[in-house]
């Protein structure tokens, strides 16, 4: 019955959705933001710890949401550690393109962590499900808001 949902709900997503990595509020974070998807009720908080070298020393999150949004948040936390904020933003931009645009329309976001982009491919299935794009990008919007010192990210204002 669900054959064409297997592209969206791949094993990796089910796994991260069920057992999210880096879940829970850490001690000693220094940036945080709350993300809200009013349409479906997903809520997450992202906690960033920026090291003295300006790099992202730690990322964690908590909150609840669907398998897609939890998996996306979990995958994100795995790949941002050690990155400069600029690199994280570039990844966000490229991932956002991947979820929302045809490949010809992707824009140049600067040098990218290609390995991370490969991993993020598992979420690209949301492009076929416009209602679910916000689920996949909520954690990233929230991370981006935290980096910029905004307390709240809402996908309603995210301009899709």
């Amino acid at each position, binding site marked *: 019955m*669900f054959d*064409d949902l297997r592209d*969206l709900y791949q094993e990796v997503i089910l796994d991260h959705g069920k057992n999210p990595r880096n879940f829970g509020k850490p001690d000693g974070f220094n940036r945080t933001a709350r993300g809200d998807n009013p349409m479906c*009720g997903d809520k997450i908080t992202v906690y960033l710890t920026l090291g003295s070298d300006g790099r992202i020393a730690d990322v964690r999150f908590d909150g609840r*949401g*669907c398998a897609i949004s939890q998996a996306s948040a979990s995958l994100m936390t795995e790949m941002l550690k050690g990155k400069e904020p600029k690199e994280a933003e570039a990844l966000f931009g490229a991932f956002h393109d991947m979820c929302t645009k045809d490949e010809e329309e992707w824009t140049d976001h600067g040098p990218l962590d290609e390995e991370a982009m490969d991993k993020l491919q598992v979420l690209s299935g949301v492009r076929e499900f416009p209602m*679910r794009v916000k689920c996949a990008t909520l954690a990233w919007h929230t991370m981006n808001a935290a980096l910029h010192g905004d307390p709240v990210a809402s996908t309603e204002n995210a301009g899709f």
Partner: protein
Amino acid sequence: MTRPATLLSDAPVTSNAPYDVERVRQDFPILTRLVHERKGRPGKPLVYLDNAASAQKPRAVIDAMSGLLERDYANVHRGVHFLSQRSTDLYEATRDKVAKLLNAPSRENIVFTRNATEAFNLVAQSWGRTFLKTGDVVLLSYMEHHANIVPWQLLRDQTGIRIEVVPVLDDGSLDLDAYEKALKTLAVKLVAITHSSNVLGTVNPVRQMARLAHEHGATVLFDGSQAVVHRPVDVQAIDADLYVFTAHKLYGPTGIGVLYGKKAVLDAMPPYQGGGDMISTVTFEKTTFREAPYRFEAGTPPIIEGVGLGAAIDYVTALGLDAIQAHEQRLLAYATERLREIEGLRIIGTAPEKAAIISFTIDGIHPHDIGTFVDRAGVAVRVGRHCAEPLMDRFGVGATCRASFGLYNTEAEADALVEAVKATKAFFG
């Protein structure tokens, strides 16, 4: 296309024939369509269980609206010409039909608005600004739709009224003891509570609530959006001062809603918006307004939608709201029992008196994922917060799945929902 002959006549007499749901389904063109058709793969029959969000329209409504546009359309209330008169008659006939549907004393009790939401805003800004002062209490409940919360918050910020909220018990019933206590102990001037919850299905004991409120000198406003669609409603028996519903959930079109008000209540309310149609005379120094309900209907009204609503009321009254209620109650019992087969499924809202609305969650699977999966099986349900965030918080859930049944739904469709949910569970393991 033939024009429906009943457009101007009284609603057809209710028949005593048994409820023939298959016959009823033939009146709704959309129910024959398939969804998720792809090349080389047939689609799935539509199983529409999102009626609480908006109901589908019978052929009679579609024909009444296009019939008006093809033959009878002109602006209303302002022309001497043939079509304007014709259009006015058709549009105003709906006011009589609504009055009859609600058993209102007269057509003058019926104000047309854009939807339920606008009716609440109208009451808050017109009645509220006139009769409520700083510190007066508006009593809401935890099961209110945002449409009956936010207008009061806007008023609170303008005038300093207080908003108090009646709790909901674990089974989804309103806490009537707390309700009575609030009336006894607080300066409650207005009770604004739903007749039936769009999430829990709970039907509140509105007669008793109105009586208690009146004993304590409070005015009552009920949200009938989820009530008029499922059961006969008699605003005089309830003794509602104000009563609101929205047409698109009653198998009518979007763009029109209803505010019922007792004559004395409406007469005491100043206009909400200004413009054409609501005035008697206008000079730059002074304008005098028309009597209620017209005073509240500024500008060209939703003419086409009004005619559509009239046809929808004819349709449901011909089937009989008693018969619709009995059919839906059978479905509710059946679907509830079948959903209970599913391990880990929790039904939110199990009050003794319920409309055919079932909200549920499943351990370990987010409602949003369930919604996406059952949709692939052709089953349309709503997932999310249902414009009732405080209620979600009350039950400790971020969101639920909601299956809401209408007059055309069948037991086979309840089975389709159950099978799709079971398959979803199997997928997530």
